[in-house]
């Protein structure tokens, strides 16, 4: 015990000395910028996170914290490319169903214990364990890890999971199906290692700041629910000497306008810009207001199930409605935050995805409106037989503005009668999931940076396919893409079919719209998933 404390103290001293040496001069080692003395980053969180347990966390706020506290096999760099994490690299067999990761030998937990392959095996088995009942257990199934589905269903023992520690620094993963993008998925928090001893000692309370042991660049030092949480430099982290930011403070501010006021008062380094305020803010604070594309889409889905409206069974009607949406007005006047207009389901920002040339995108709005009228007339709707339907969205000011704009466009251009209805979130999800709607709002953020994370939503058997779109060719193409070395052309064809059949009306793709203090260095605007790591950030002297 004594010896252990001494070693960790020694480690602490050495690393402080190294840190001191690297940054005492107060300049950034690569860019040469003068660094601020106080390396604290304060940002706004819109809501309390659900958990900082890597296998349990299910919300983005929590995942952001977990990415700082824990480190998985692979990380992402500022552009979203795969870079080594605890693993220095990996190899795959020819059939791409066995992956072998080599772990670095200097990775440590915050209590000084080494991070071993066994910690990953424990964590991954934990994720599928019915006793833990993780809401993200499905992610292990999505990763196609051998026997994951059977274990979750309780039909196989946990030890059958296709993951094995060959030795302390070699981890072997067997998949039930070949998966070319498997390594990308190991940047997801569900796959991060977990400290078995600590979890067994404290149970559910292991994630409290006084109990937690973690292997990331930061440790969890303070948590006041609904108010703030603090994470501070982990001196045991293997790359601590290259970590500049000392402290990260997340303040929970539910109201985004209050958050903006507090940002302007200098209490925050980063906050979100409320819809519609970006043009004003970028004029008043051109250096601070930033906008960049994100990996999320915003769309409306038709109910194509048997119980859905008859009118929507005709692709002409669906296409007419999509054509008549003036996306320019939505993105420039309503949202006004630099959101890209959407004519395809997967965002252009998706890695390895080329937006196919959809006919609609190259037309002028006048041409689209003209075609929309023709199509609707062909379908038998006109002034004496107007199309009418209900559209639902979840209660939210921004969604309301978009819905009102859409219904007005359809009314003015096509004489369509639309009844708007908003629903509280959980009610909305249940109604949409049970196909109790005509036209419903939808949005999706990619779980990983690959087009299938979006396009799979339109696969006929998908649990997320609330519109019940069913196209045999789409299913076939998506199945083929799973194992293909070059799935891009397949995705392009899927998007072409979607444009033709119009099961959904893509409206826009999300943008990250922030007020960011100019002294925050290296915010990864090019990482479309916004997987940011505090250890890559720094504060410059003002």
């Amino acid at each position, binding site marked *: 015990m004594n010896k252990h404390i001494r070693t960790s103290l020694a480690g602490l001293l050495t690393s402080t000395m190294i840190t001191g040496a690297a940054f005492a001069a107060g300049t950034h080692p690569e860019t040469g910028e003068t660094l601020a003395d106080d390396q604290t980053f304060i940002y706004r969180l819109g809501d309390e996170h659900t958990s900082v347990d890597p296998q349990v966390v299910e919300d983005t706020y929590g995942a952001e914290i977990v990415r700082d506290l824990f480190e998985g096999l692979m990380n992402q760099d500022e552009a979203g490319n795969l870079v080594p994490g605890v693993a220095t690299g990996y190899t795959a067999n020819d059939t791409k169903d066995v992956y072998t990761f080599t772990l670095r030998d200097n990775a440590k937990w915050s209590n000084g214990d080494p991070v071993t392959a066994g910690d990953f095996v424990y964590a991954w088995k934990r994720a599928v364990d019915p006793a833990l009942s993780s*809401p993200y257990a499905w992610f292990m*199934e999505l990763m196609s890890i051998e026997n994951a*589905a059977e274990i979750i269903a*309780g039909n196989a023992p946990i030890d059958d999971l296709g993951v094995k520690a060959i030795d302390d620094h070699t981890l072997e993963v067997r998949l039930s199906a070949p998966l070319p993008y498997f390594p990308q998925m190991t940047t997801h928090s569900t796959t991060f290692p977990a400290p078995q001893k600590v979890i067994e000692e404290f149970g559910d309370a292991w994630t409290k700041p006084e109990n937690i042991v973690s292997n990331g660049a930061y440790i969890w030092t303070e948590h006041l629910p609904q108010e703030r949480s603090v994470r501070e430099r982990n001196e045991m982290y293997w790359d601590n000497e290259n970590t500049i930011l000392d402290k990260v403070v997340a303040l929970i501010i539910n109201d985004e306008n*209050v958050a903006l006021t507090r940002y302007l008062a200098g209490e925050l380094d980063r906050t979100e810009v409320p819809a519609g305020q970006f043009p004003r803010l970028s004029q008043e604070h051109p250096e601070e207001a930033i906008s960049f594309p994100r990996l999320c889409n915003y769309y409306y889905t038709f109910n194509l199930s048997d119980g859905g409206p008859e009118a929507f069974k005709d692709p002409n009607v669906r296409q007419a409605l999509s054509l008549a949406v003036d996306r320019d007005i939505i993105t420039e006047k309503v949202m006004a935050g630099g959101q890209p207009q959407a004519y395809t389901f997967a965002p252009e920002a998706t890695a390895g995805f080329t937006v196919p040339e959809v006919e609609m995108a190259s037309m002028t709005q006048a041409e689209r409106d003209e075609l929309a009228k023709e199509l609707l007339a062909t379908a038998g709707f006109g002034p004496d037989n107007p199309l009418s339907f209900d559209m639902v969205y979840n209660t939210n000011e921004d969604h309301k503005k978009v819905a009102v704009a859409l219904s007005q466009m359809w009314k003015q251009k096509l004489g369509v009668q639309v009844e708007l209805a908003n629903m509280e979130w*959980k009610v909305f999800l249940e109604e949409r*999931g049970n196909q109790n709607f005509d036209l419903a709002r939808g949005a999706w953020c990619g779980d990983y940076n690959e087009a299938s994370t979006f396009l799979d939503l339109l696969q006929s058997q998908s649990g997320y396919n609330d519109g019940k779109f069913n196209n045999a060719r789409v299913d076939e193409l998506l199945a083929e893409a799973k194992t293909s070395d070059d799935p891009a052309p397949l995705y392009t064809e899927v998007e072409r079919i979607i444009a033709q059949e119009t099961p959904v009306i893509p409206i826009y793709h999300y943008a990250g719209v922030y007020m960011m203090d100019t002294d925050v260095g290296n915010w990864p605007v090019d990482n479309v998933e916004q997987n940011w790591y505090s250890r890559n950030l720094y504060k410059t002297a003002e």
Partner: protein
Amino acid sequence: MLAYSLRRLLVAIPTILLLIVACFFLMHYAPGGPFTSERPLPPQVLANIEARYGLDQPLWKQLWDYLYNIVVHFDFGPSFKFKDRDVNDIIAQGFPISLTYGSLSFLVATVVGVSLGIAAAIRHNSWIDYFAVGLGIAAQALPNFIMGPILILTFTLWLGWLPGGGWNGGQWPYLIMPVIALATSYMGSIARITRSSMLEVLNSNFIRTARAKGLPTRTVIWRHALKPTLLPVVSYLGPVFVYVLTGSVFVDIYFSTGGLGQAYVGSALSRDYAVLLGVTILYGALTVVVNLLTDLAYAWFDPKIRY
């Protein structure tokens, strides 16, 4: 009076039980559940989670287990949303915060409101009266969800005097804005009620008698008029006391105080059944106790009332 109090507290038990049962069933029949999410969970995963929390049991069994745990272990169950905290934790953390800014707001609202009301009534139709009435109406017309942003804009952004939010263990710079925001509208109502009640009392026969026998105005007001004046104010203060003590969701949202109000509304939206029930029971119990105290206070204010 002791017997009366005990009787009231005994009656409270079935009342709270009824509250629990009603709330329990309403909650379970509301569409959506705690694990309804945008990414619908695969049936097997959902089944595992429901089994873990006992949600796969019949409703009557769930209700029975819930009551049993409360009575025997004083355990109000886990939070479905916040995995490392249970309901006891959430209440233990949020209630003291709500209690602090709530009781301060109550104090401010009562003291300022009653003083304003009395001053206005004594100087009826003078500038003090107009000022007090004007202030009272303005304060009442400014609900806390308007006051919050206005205060933050003024004191944080423009003047830079106060932190825009947070709790920091309840240090006074963090308390000022939440207390003002929460107190103003109640203060307005209290001032109005006090004023009209005082005016009525001042016109009554026993006050005329007191004046006629030559008592100084000060004695008339303090010894004879004040107690009957406060009777309607006290019946208004009872429920207000519960409201402010249990925290305000608006104060919690605008000032990030971390109080119970936000946890309560949040739990309803996320269908966090146990948290919702736990806080409801707390509110219910508080209401019962405060109502009893209000009734007992009546007897002090009005000797005609006997229990």
